[in-house]
């Protein structure tokens, strides 16, 4: 693969790397908050993928002016989709944190191994 091609996809490389960092944190960390941070990163990476794909070279914001003809603009649909996905991500994170608070109340710890030992 030519270097140019490799760099040309750099948004997608960042997506893949972020995704894997997040995934690693979810799997490897025992602290529940750190797991949630990883999960949040994992989801954000996907947002980046959607946003990258809607970019049209030379395109502007998708606002149609009445007098402009042949105006080139980016695809608005993935942005709208990701707005929804961000809301989903935020609610998941909020619920996850709420569960962690409850776990702390009932177990007195948020370390996964200590919770497993407690039962």
């Amino acid at each position, binding site marked *: 693969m030519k270097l140019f091609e490799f760099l040309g996809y750099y948004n997608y490389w960042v997506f893949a790397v972020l995704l894997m960092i997040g*995934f690693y944190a*979810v799997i490897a960390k025992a602290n*529940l908050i750190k*797991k949630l941070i990883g*999960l949040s990163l*994992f*989801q954000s990476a*996907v947002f980046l*993928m*959607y946003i990258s*794909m809607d970019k049209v070279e030379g395109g502007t914001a998708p606002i149609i002016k009445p007098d402009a003809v042949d105006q080139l603009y980016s695809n608005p649909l*993935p942005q709208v*989709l990701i707005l*929804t*996905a961000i809301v*989903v991500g935020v*609610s*998941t994170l909020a*619920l*996850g944190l709420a*569960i*962690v608070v*409850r*776990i702390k109340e*009932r*177990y007195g710890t948020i370390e*996964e191994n200590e*919770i*497993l030992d407690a*039962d």
Partner: protein
Amino acid sequence: MDFAQHLPVLQVIIPLLAAPLIVLLQPRGFAWAATTATAFFSFAVSIAIAARILAGDILHYEMGGWFAPIGIELRVDAFSAIVLLIISGAAAISLVAARTSINQQIEHHRQPLFYAAWLLAIAGLVGMVVTADAFNIFVFMEISSLAGYILIAGGPDRRALPAVFKYLIIGTIGATFYLIGVGMIYMMTGTLNLDDMAQRVVGIEDQRPILVAAAFVFIGLALKAALFPLHVWLPNAYTHAPHMVTVFLAACGTKVAVYVLLRFQFTIFQSFAEHLLQFALFLMPLALLGITVASLVAMFEGHLKRMLAFSSVAQIGYILLGASLMSDSGFTASTLHMFNHALAKGALFLAVAKFATQYADLRIDSLEGAARSMPLTSFAFVIAGLSLIGVPGTAGFISKWQLIMAIMETGNMGFIMVGIVVISSLIAVAYIWRVVETLYAIPTDNIPASATNVNVKSEKMDLLLVALMFTVAMNIYFGLVPALPFTLAELSSQILLQVKF
């Protein structure tokens, strides 16, 4: 405009709108009554839809008057209709039975919120089934999952919290994988409408993003569907959830993910040159392993709810084994088994919930002699257990028989698979019998401390018992007269297996 055209959207919008209203109903019992009424209305809508489907219709609905593929289309065919019946039926029956058990397990001031979450879960699940838009499926999937996490974590058992945290992590990863897959398909096809996607994917189906997308969608949905070996979240979540929530989720939760999985595999990815290799031959060993391993684990499990949860993992294996045969009869068996397993497992968990009203400890050993104090519940457990095993005369038999017939069509290889199905059914006999033996055992001197009045018939006739009896009767009814689910299952296999271009 014909009223029937609005049925698909009513199915989603009624529980969705009722949920915030329920939160406002503070006096005791009101929230429960309103939720149950909503669930029954939803069930009535599903029945009306099923009637239209049986009459040969396919229902379309354009959200907001925007036509597909630009707008979001709701689309209900036979496959959606049977899953809708499962969801709304399970919701109606479990809610009508829920009062006593929920009063025991959830504090009164939190009940309206709890019921609202329940309605949101229903709205999410039916939404996934009626919509024909890939991104819409994601949104509804997350609505139902988030509501489901709340329901599972709502009970008094503190072990539910780590269990639900694990489920939240795995469920979110599954949904995100699905989202990545949909994004990649959108990149290549420029559409989110399922039918449109199926048409546009033809010709580019060997491109790498499409193949990668197929893998992401498959793994994401398999996580949600608890396909072995991705089932690790399920046993603990089901075991420590409030009992009535387990009834509802065990009857329909994972099946909706299976529905979306099959919908994607058969409408969009079917044109792949190596679809048979990539899907069927990948899925079949996992399904067979799931059936065997989960059944074996269930046999050695000491906790009643966890045993039934592992049995659920095995049953998902049966459902996907039928689908992996890629034949008309295999698919019919698969759809039929979704319906019949929902009946059998729903009844079993209802019986568990009834036991739980009198026995604090649900380990199998501590239920010794329970048949004396709770004869009707124990009898219902036996019948539902027979249906789970697949004894002739019960609903479970119809789908297992259909599955075995479908396997036999595949030729010599089939004998091994039939062997596995028969052996795992025998294992099911073993683990159900172990419970039945304990229930009907004559109690020895060391009466468990958790049991009250062991030798006195103390079973109260309440809605829970009535719902249990009704579900058990349905197990027998659909075992003797399987026409309704059978016709819907056959119609859905016709719809999914026709190659769409």
